[in-house]
C-alpha cells in the first residue's frame, strides 16, 4: 500500500470505530423507544432486537390506567416555576456579581461555589421539617423553590459569564442619556445577554423537570406527584408492564432532551472553560 492509501485506511478505521461506539452508547435510548412501541411481544426470550410489531397501545394504556396526565401537569408546574424563579433571581444576582466588585460580592461568590458541594442527603432531613413548619410541604411551588436553590449557583455562574462579556461602557452611555442604573441594565445589557437568559431558563426548566430526590421527600399526596415520583412508583408492583413503563419514560425524557438541545452549546463551552481555566 502507498502511504496515502494506508493513511486513508487508518482514517476510515477510526471513523467506523467511532460510529460503532456511538451506536453502543445510544443503545439504551434505542431500547427505550423500541420497547415502548412494541406490544406484549417485548416479553420474549430471546428479545427481538428489531421491533416486530409496531403499536402505540402502550402510550394509550398508560394515560388510561395511570395518573400520567396529572403527573405531567404537576411536572410542568414545577419545571415552569423553577425556570421562572431561577431566571428572576439569577438575572439580578449575576448582574451584581458581574458589575460590582465589593467585599459582599466576593463573599457571595465563595458562598455560591461552596453551596454546590453540600450533600443533598443531609439537607433534606431538616428541610423536610422546615417545609412542614412553613407550610411549603406537599406544595408544588414549595418544591420549585427547593429545586431553584439547588440550580441557582450554577445558573448565576453561567449568566455572570454572559454579562462579563458585555462592555460596561454601553450601560454608562445609556446612563448619560438619562437611564437609571437599573434601567440601563434592564433596557440595554439584558437584551444583549438574551442567549444567557435562554440558557438559564432552560436549565431551570430541566432541573425542575428531572428532579426526583426532593420531590420524593417534600411531596406526599398522590395528586401532587410529579413524573419522576410517579414512574418509580411502578417498581414495587408484582409484574411491571415494561412497554408501558418505557412509553412513560419516553414522554418524560422528551421535554428534557428538547431543552437540553437548546443549552447544549453554551453548557459545553461553559463547562469546558470552567474546568480548564478553573
Amino acid at each position, binding site marked *: 500500500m502507498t502511504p496515502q492509501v494506508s493513511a486513508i485506511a487508518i482514517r476510515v478505521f477510526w471513523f467506523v470505530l467511532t460510529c460503532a461506539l*456511538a451506536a453502543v452508547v445510544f443503545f439504551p*435510548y434505542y431500547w427505550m423507544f423500541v420497547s415502548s412501541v412494541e406490544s406484549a411481544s417485548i416479553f420474549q426470550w430471546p428479545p427481538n432486537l428489531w421491533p416486530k410489531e409496531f403499536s402505540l397501545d402502550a402510550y394509550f394504556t398508560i394515560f388510561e390506567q395511570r395518573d400520567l396526565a396529572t403527573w405531567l401537569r404537576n411536572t410542568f408546574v414545577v419545571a415552569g416555576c423553577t425556570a421562572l424563579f431561577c431566571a428572576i433571581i439569577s438575572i439580578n444576582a449575576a448582574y451584581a456579581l458581574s458589575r460590582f466588585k465589593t467585599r459582599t460580592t466576593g463573599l457571595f461568590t465563595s458562598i455560591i461555589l461552596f453551596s454546590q458541594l453540600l450533600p443533598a442527603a443531609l439537607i433534606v432531613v431538616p428541610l423536610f421539617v422546615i417545609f412542614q413548619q412553613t407550610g411549603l410541604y406537599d406544595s408544588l411551588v414549595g418544591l420549585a423553590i427547593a429545586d431553584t436553590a439547588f440550580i441557582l449557583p450554577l445558573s448565576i455562574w453561567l449568566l455572570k459569564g454572559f454579562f462579563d462579556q458585555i462592555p460596561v461602557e454601553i450601560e454608562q452611555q445609556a446612563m448619560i442619556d438619562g437611564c437609571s442604573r437599573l434601567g440601563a441594565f434592564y433596557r440595554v445589557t439584558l437584551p444583549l445577554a438574551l442567549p444567557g437568559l435562554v440558557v438559564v431558563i432552560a436549565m431551570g426548566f430541566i432541573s425542575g423537570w428531572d428532579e426526583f430526590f426532593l420531590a420524593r421527600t417534600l411531596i406526599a399526596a398522590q395528586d401532587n406527584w410529579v413524573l419522576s415520583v410517579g414512574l*418509580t412508583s411502578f417498581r414495587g408492583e408484582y409484574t411491571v408492564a415494561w412497554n408501558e413503563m418505557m412509553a412513560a419514560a419516553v414522554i418524560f425524557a422528551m421535554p428534557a432532551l428538547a431543552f437540553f438541545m437548546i443549552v447544549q452549546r453554551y453548557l459545553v463551552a461553559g463547562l469546558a472553560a470552567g474546568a480548564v481555566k478553573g
Partner: protein
Amino acid sequence: MSTKPQTARRIDWLPILLLLPVGVVLVLILIWPIVQGISLSFFNTRILNYSQGKFIGIANYNFLLQDENFWNSLRVTAIYGALSMSLTYLLGLGFALLLNRNFILRGFLRTIFILPWAIPEVVAVLIFMWMLDPQFGVLNYLMVKAGFIDRPLAWLTQSSLAMPALVMLTAWQQFPLAMLILLAGLQTIPREQYEAAMVDGAGPISRFFHVTLPGLRPVNVILILLLILNSFRRVTMIYAMTRGGPARSTETLSILTYNTAFEYQKIGYAAAVGTALLIILLIFSLIYFRAIIRSRSAA
C-alpha cells in the same frame, strides 16, 4: 466600575438589594438546613417527637463508631466512588481521544456521545432496570451471547451484582461530563509538542504517554476529584435503582443518611451520619479548591 455612582462614599445598597433574593433562597434551602442538620446530630430526635428531642451530646457519634452499618456504608461509598470514578474517567478519556480528531459528522457524533448526560436520571434508571431484567432483559441476552455470562443474572436482587450494575449505569450516564472536560483539556495541548515528539521518532503510544497524559495533568486532578465528590453526594440514581439494597450492598453514606431518617425515622442519628459525610466532602472539597487555585496560578 470606572464611573462611581453619586453615593460613592456611602454604602452602595444596590448590589446588596440585587443579591438579597439569592441570599434568602440559599440560606433557607441550603445553609440553614445544613446548620440545623449539624446541630440535630447532638439530639436524639425522631420524626414523631421532632420538637422534643433531648440533647445527648456526642452519643450519636459514639454509636456511629460502633455501628456496623456505618462502617459498611463507608466501605460501599469508597468502593462505589473508586469504581464509578475509574470507569467514568476511562470511558471519558477514550471517547475524548476518539473525538479529538477531524472527521465528517464530528459534531453529530459528539452530540450522540453527550446524550446519556441529558436524560433524566430516573429514566436512565428505568431503562437499565428493564435492560437488566432477569427474565427478558436485553443486556442479559447480549452478555450471554457474547459469552461474558452463561445464563441471565438477577442483577438487582443479588448483593454481589447490584454494585457492578450501579457502576455500569453511573458510567454510562456520567462519562459525557468527563469526556467534555477532557476534550477541552486536549485542545489546550500545543500542536508543536506532538510535532516535536514525532520528529524525535515517538510512535502514537509513546506520544500518548509523554505528551497527552502530562498535558492533561491539571485537568485530570480537578476532574477526578469532581467525579469522586459527585459519587459521594449522588442520591437519585442509587435510591431509584436499589434504595441501598439488596442487603445494604449499595448503601452509600448518602443513602444511609436518607434511609436512617425516613425509613427508620431516627432524625438525630441520620444527622450524625450526614455530618460525617459532610466532613468527608469538606476534606475532598478543600483538596479540590486547592487544585483549582493551583491550576489557575499555573496557567
